[in-house]
């Protein structure tokens, strides 16, 4: 795969991307091509390989085989260049509760090398964009779940990344907070032209937010398409839940492991 900068057309492109843990193949020969400027959904049951895939695309995990380009750079050969072009909001709540919102953003600004002269203006802009300007000096542990997620989005957008990766960003949020996060993601795409890759197993979220979806099952891409196209493909009147059940294995999910469950519960608990 060409790993030089300027790979045209796709924000994310994977070829045969595979990751194994011992005898378990968590991601199995995944081929994806995500155009710039899309909000792209990655769906799948627990343990389908979404988080492993996103970890490889964000350079947290090396592929066992295959390769991926993110923002025109190979995740294996040029991880530093990839990191400079992406923003990431992990499934877990990663904002530091012992710091204020402003201090969390200052840390991000420094780690992303924002010039000192631009730092305060960018932080102010991000806080305003996320509706957190009035809470900037409060400790994050006093924030609501929705505010923490918006702060994390502010951290992820501070350096104006080309591509934003969000791992189940609305898990545990109440409907109001969830819609607020969706609105901000649409604004980010509209105002800054960011490509957004979001993992979810919330079908309402997938349909409302995403231009295109890939459903993963057992580490493989089961299907790719627009929400409307996937529903139409299943027959008139099909719902996204039926689409998900059809492609993601159907029935009661036995997938996911203990760690997944603990992480999900921990995130939900922190969100209150």
């Amino acid at each position, binding site marked *: 795969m060409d790993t030089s900068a300027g790979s045209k057309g796709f924000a994310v492109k994977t070829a045969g991307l595979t990751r194994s843990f011992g005898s378990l193949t968590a991601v199995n020969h995944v081929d994806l091509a995500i155009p710039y400027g899309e909000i792209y959904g990655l769906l799948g049951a627990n343990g389908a390989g979404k988080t492993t895939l996103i*970890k490889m695309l*964000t*350079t*947290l*995990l090396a592929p066992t085989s295959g390769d991926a380009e993110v923002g025109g750079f190979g995740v294996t050969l040029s991880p*530093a260049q990839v*990191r*400079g072009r*992406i923003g*990431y909001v*992990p*499934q*877990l*709540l*990663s904002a*530091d509760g*012992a*710091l204020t919102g402003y*201090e969390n953003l*200052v*840390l*991000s600004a*420094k*780690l*992303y*090398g924002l010039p000192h002269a631009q730092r305060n203006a960018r932080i102010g802009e991000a806080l305003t964009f996320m509706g957190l300007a009035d809470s900037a000096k409060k400790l994050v542990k006093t924030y609501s779940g929705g505010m923490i997620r918006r702060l994390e989005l502010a*951290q992820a957008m501070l350096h104006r990344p080309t591509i934003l990766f969000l791992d189940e960003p609305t898990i545990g949020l109440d409907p109001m907070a969830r819609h607020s996060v969706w609105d901000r993601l649409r604004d980010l795409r509209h105002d800054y032209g960011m490509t957004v890759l979001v993992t979810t197993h919330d079908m309402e979220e997938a349909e409302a937010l995403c231009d295109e979806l890939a459903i993963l099952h057992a580490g493989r891409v089961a299907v790719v398409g627009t929400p409307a196209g996937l529903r139409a493909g299943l027959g008139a009147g099909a719902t996204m839940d039926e689409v998900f059940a059809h492609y993601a294995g159907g029935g009661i999910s036995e997938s996911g492991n203990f760690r997944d469950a603990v*992480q999900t519960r*921990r995130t939900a608990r*922190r969100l209150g």
Partner: protein
Amino acid sequence: MDRFLRESAAIAQVELIKLLRDPTEMVSRAVQPVLWLVVFGQVLAHVHGIYTGDVGYLAFITPGILAQSVLFSAIFYGIAVIWERDLGVVHKLLVSPARRISLVFGKAVSAGFRGLVQAAVIYLVAFFMHITLRQEPQAIFGVLAGVLLGSALFSTFSLIIACIVKTRERFMGIGQLLTMPMFFASNAIYPLDIMPGWLRVVAQLNPLTYLVDALRGLMIVGGKSVHGYGVDFAVLLTTFVLLLLIAVRLYPTLVE
């Protein structure tokens, strides 16, 4: 170099803010060295059970207790790192373009802040117990340098263990298993001369011995470094650099 320092300073600064905002941990960690000096040290000094030459036993163990405090507060640093992993903080740090060595070095520096607080506590307790310590600026500067280096070394060691064991439960067990042998297999509370031969060999391989040795020369009036300050600091620095390089390799594996 500028970028390395800027990124490391950003990590260290955050830890400093948190430490100053919630000093509970610092206060609780101050209890143990006070007990060692006030109870253990006084009793052993009273019975004259350990020969320490011209230096009184309380003065003799004061640098050892400081080194022990540095070790104990730094060695459980890995638990905080595992906690950060569980909260997703490590994920976010590793996805940033900041270099891994800056992230790990920044953590090591921030452990040094806790060590400096321990040093202040020990000096304060020593003052109230009428233990006379050296007060020349160069000696105090040397103590601070030793404490920073020791904290950085043991916290990086702790980070490595955290990267290997990956869970808090396992870490607690390993941490207990390592700290007490490291403490007793050193010259912290008795001189190397009175150890059996095999233990002396182990102590010579233990970085804590070199920290105690340097601190003993720098803190005690009339005290001296057995190995020489050059050897003590060279051993500490070399060990730290080696551990740092290992930690830089292992830190990203925390999120796999």
